């Protein structure tokens, strides 16, 4: 694992956005070979999306040959509802960039047959050649996407009932009325994300600190599903100082040290030294 620690939320968002940008540029996507990107929603990646839009507007990057697959969507929430993940992605990302609508995939929480919808989604990912880079977040209970505590670490895309922690955390988007928060969601499985070539998890804020500790300093455990990525060959955790509050000083020092080395390494790469 790589743990990248930035001073604050804005810097963490910028680092993550630059990483995504550079990966897409290095990949040199084309009509024959699309770059497949897995995407999250929520308050954590908001700053990252803003930065990516800036890069698009300044001409640094195009999403013309990028296919995206979002992690999850609520069940039963009308797609036009301002809190649906479709609305989130449209307002915060898709409407500002040049992605082809046919290449933007999000699970349909209003599908007639939810099970078929989930299977079809797995199929679409397979047909797209798998995910090149899956970007995700972490819940305060350590979940990735909606893989709540107790989810199988080899799970695939399926319907999940949301945990109380998650419903409470999301209530702020529904006027703080717990009754208005959807109780079920479609989500990619832990196994689905593990299949990606590379995974980048964004974690910011003190309220996520304990979950980060559980995810990287304790064992692999289905009660903290993000811990599964300890067994992925290529994972980056991007966080701000606040999110490291529950980690050992030794862990933080170690990774801050390696990142300094990486900085020097990257500076020597001509085209791709935009990262720092």
């Amino acid at each position, binding site marked *: 694992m790589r743990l990248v620690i930035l001073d604050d939320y804005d810097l963490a968002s910028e680092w993550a956005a630059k990483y995504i940008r550079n990966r897409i540029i290095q990949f040199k996507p084309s009509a024959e070979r699309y770059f497949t990107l897995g995407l999250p929603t929520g308050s954590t990646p908001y700053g990252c999306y803003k930065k990516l839009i800036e890069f698009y507007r300044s001409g640094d990057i195009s999403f013309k040959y990028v296919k995206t697959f979002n992690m999850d969507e609520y069940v039963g929430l009308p*797609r*036009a509802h301002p809190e649906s993940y*479709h*609305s989130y992605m*449209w307002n915060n990302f*898709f*409407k500002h960039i040049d992605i*082809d*609508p*046919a290449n*933007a995939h*999000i699970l349909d929480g209003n599908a007639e047959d939810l099970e078929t919808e989930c299977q079809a989604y797995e199929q679409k990912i397979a047909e797209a050649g798998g995910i090149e880079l899956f970007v995700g977040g972490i819940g305060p209970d350590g979940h990735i996407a909606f893989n709540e505590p107790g989810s199988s670490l080899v799970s695939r895309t399926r319907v999940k009932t949301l945990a109380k922690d998650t419903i409470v955390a999301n209530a702020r988007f529904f006027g703080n009325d717990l009754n208005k928060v959807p109780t079920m969601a479609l989500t990619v499985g832990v196994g689905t994300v593990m299949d990606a070539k590379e995974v980048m998890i964004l974690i910011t804020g003190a309220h996520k600190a304990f979950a980060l500790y559980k995810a990287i300093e304790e064992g692999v455990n289905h009660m903290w599903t993000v811990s599964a990525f300890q067994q992925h060959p290529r994972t980056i955790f991007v966080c701000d100082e606040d999110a490291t509050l529950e980690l050992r000083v030794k862990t933080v020092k170690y990774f801050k040290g390696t990142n300094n080395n990486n900085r020097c390494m990257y500076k020597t790469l001509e085209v791709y030294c935009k990262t720092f």
Partner: protein
Amino acid sequence: MPSNKSVSDAAITQFINCRILRDHRLQRDDLWVREGKVLDPEKLFFDEKGYADKLVDCEGSIIAPGFIDVQINGGYGIDFSQASDDVSSGVSFVAKKILQHGVTSFCPTLVTSPPAVYHKVLPQIKVSDGGEHGAGVLGFHLEGPFISVEKKGAHPEQFLRTFQSGGIEDLMEAYGGLDNIAMVTLAPELGGSQSVVKELCQRGITVSLGHSVANLSQAEEAVHHGASFITHLFNAMLPFHHRDPGIVGLLTSDQVPAGRTVYYGMIADGIHTNPAALRIAHRAHPSGLVLVTDAITAMGLPPGRHTLGQQVIEIQGLHAYVAGLNAAYQPPTTCSACTKTLCGSIATMDMCVRHFKHASGCSVEEALEAASLHPAKLLGISHKKGNLDYGSDADLVLLDDALNVEATFISGEEVWRKGP
């Protein structure tokens, strides 16, 4: 780059680099149009996997819903109240000209006239959509002849009428019919008028109170029967009095039925109403304010003498007076109780919007809504006009920050653009 054609084949236009008036705020957002209506881009993206065929770069302009003028008597030498054989070419001429003021829909207004004039003029004009040819016609606004003698203003006294027989029958006899009529202004203190108010409202015609000496109770009774507008507030009605506010009192009346709004027209040309009075009305009831031009034949023409209905009027600067009363020019701030009788204005709608904003200190959004959303709600057409909601007609006006009109669009097509 069109859609998967699952809903429509038609071309999609995207207005970019603009601030649009939506949800009562100016928002930095793009506006999407297809087949003459505002399109929901999110539905287009997810349902149809579609995107725009054509981009229109607005270069930072404001996009507001096209202005709606519910009181305009003519302009550019045309007088709607003149009974000619070819009224429609006159209406079309004005309809085309007012595009440059940002007006995309209007109600051609007729002042008090003899039945012969109504019988000749009314059948010649139908409610019609706007386009390259000009602004859309929403129906006539018939101001009179069932109005008060004391408050006739510039209307010719000999053609004023009262309700003699059954009320609505007098109206039908005067006008010859009620087709293509959007609004009627009448005085509610006239005997038999209340039943007429009720009958007209039931037929979907907006009833306005004006040119009247009604007290507040008579006005409230009319509102109870369905009246929803006040023609040029303050002008041609009893002045506000603290023990009987008269028609002006409707702005804060507690007798207005729940869920209904009383709208009021303001001629914000700086002449018909003192800015302080404009501010009082606006502050008392901001959501009811509707900007109207009450423009007359001479609007758009140079100073001089012109006809209005059955009378002759004189232009001096931005002032229009009934000719023959007092030829010497008097500044508008002197007591106007008995010197000159104003008879309509020559300010254009965009001038009114700018003046209203300046005089009232209101926000840009409020100024724009007073000329678009409010008149649309008044006429009951806000489901398709007066706003930029998804599904509304794409009648737009592009404005700079000072609210000067840069371009006008009807049903998404450019129908006027300011020259270099």
